[in-house]
């Protein structure tokens, strides 16, 4: 019994793709420690395809689970596909989040988009 869905807890327990990528092609960071959540996403991109993605998160259970989930959702996808992934889609993929967690703690897609933007800017794409 938990305030979170089984899926959220599963990702919290076994988060996918935790860590940093050395010399990443793109990095995105959102959030603010004062409001309790910071998410950082690292990308390795080849031929417009996400070859590797990792995250680091300071935050509550849903912040960690959404970060993990978003990396799983976009691994191997094209950048264009990844840009279609929304915070809402991430929450749905986790079988939903508690209402109070839908705002601050559900920013993983934003972090991803920031990382893609960073990649595009750095690589003029």
């Amino acid at each position, binding site marked *: 019994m938990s305030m979170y869905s089984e899926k959220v807890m599963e990702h919290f327990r076994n988060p996918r793709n935790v860590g940093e990528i050395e010399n990443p092609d793109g990095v995105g960071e959102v959030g603010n420690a004062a409001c309790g959540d910071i998410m950082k996403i690292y990308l390795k991109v080849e031929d417009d395809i996400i070859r590797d993605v990792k995250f680091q998160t300071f935050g509550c259970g849903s912040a960690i689970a959404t970060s993990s989930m978003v990396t799983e959702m976009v691994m191997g996808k094209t950048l264009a596909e990844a840009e279609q992934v929304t915070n809402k889609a991430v929450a749905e993929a986790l079988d939903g989040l*508690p209402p109070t967690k839908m705002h601050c703690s559900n920013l993983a897609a934003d972090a991803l988009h920031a990382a893609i933007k960073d990649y595009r800017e750095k690589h003029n794409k």
Partner: protein
Amino acid sequence: MNRIYLDHNATTPVRPEVRDRMLPFLGELFGNPSSAHSFGQEVKPHLEEARQRIADQLGANPAQIVFTSGGTESDNMAVKGVAFAAEKGHIVTTVIEHPAVMQAVSWLVKKGFEATYIPVGSDGVVNPDDVKRALRPETILVSVMHVNNETGAIQPVEEISSITKEAGVPLHTDAVQSFGKLPTRVDDLGVDLMSIAAHKIYGPKGIGVLSIRKGTRIDPLIIGGAQEKRRRSGTENIAGIVGFGEATVLAEAEREQVYARLAALRRRFVTGLEASLTEVYVNGDAARTFPSTVSLSVSHVEGESMLLSLDMEGVAVSTGSACSSGSLEPSHVLVAMGMETVLAQGTLRFSMGRGTTEAEIDHVLEVFPPIVERLRKMSPLTRSQAC
């Protein structure tokens, strides 16, 4: 190992002795104590016995004891009741009160009352001089809690009472966290109003008391059938009341012994934490803290993620923030103590109880450091930035 409950400041299990005393009132002794017939009259002495037991514990006259539905109602009744009776005026309170007092005061401010919020030092303790300076001729109430629910910090209520007595201003204390754990005689503390609740001392949820010194001008909050000498109407929750009386007597009987045990457990726990973890901070001043509580701030890791991880290990704690479910704001108490918000976000409250054992503490000391390590590894704050 069984699950380990370290959230006694939130609520406690009902003691079996308390439950056994309650059961007849969920059975054959069901009468309404206000009824004149035998079903009512056979219940009434139990109501009055419980009142006497709680009055004895507070060194109060039973007529001062008003049963309410809990600490929150008692706080609301004290603050709003005095304000409504005065019609207008100025209230002095602190920045570390429980939301029940804080919100009642800010609601009154919206209705035209004025308020001053006394700060605390980095130890989470109010300075009585600040209360003195805050008093105005139009001050109608001072409300300062006895023991803070997040940090365990004991407030200098006695000293404040000499100030309020001199000024002739009624003093309320929220003693929900101290009743049954520390001495709380209303005359020794010098308070006119005191809020207490049963479920923090192994009694049932949904029952509390506001102790009201004779002569205190206060409007009732809940009016109607004139129960509790018109001060709190509504059919009496007799099962809850009897349970509260029993819990009170049981708590007092072991109070000093429990204090000693908690003090030793706390030392063991704090020593263990500081030995096995770096960059962790035990909040407050141990000498001024009720020893059930360890408020621990952990750098670079957010509180809820530690709470969930501990919960997966069967260890129940809470985050520093008042309403762990919902609020994403950092704890107002820790911020008031001058902590940076990012560290405040990384705070856990461990609160021990009468049943907490050394083995439990040792188990927590075993499982907790790897949790912190794992989450720190996941944190973007650890290496790159300090925020």
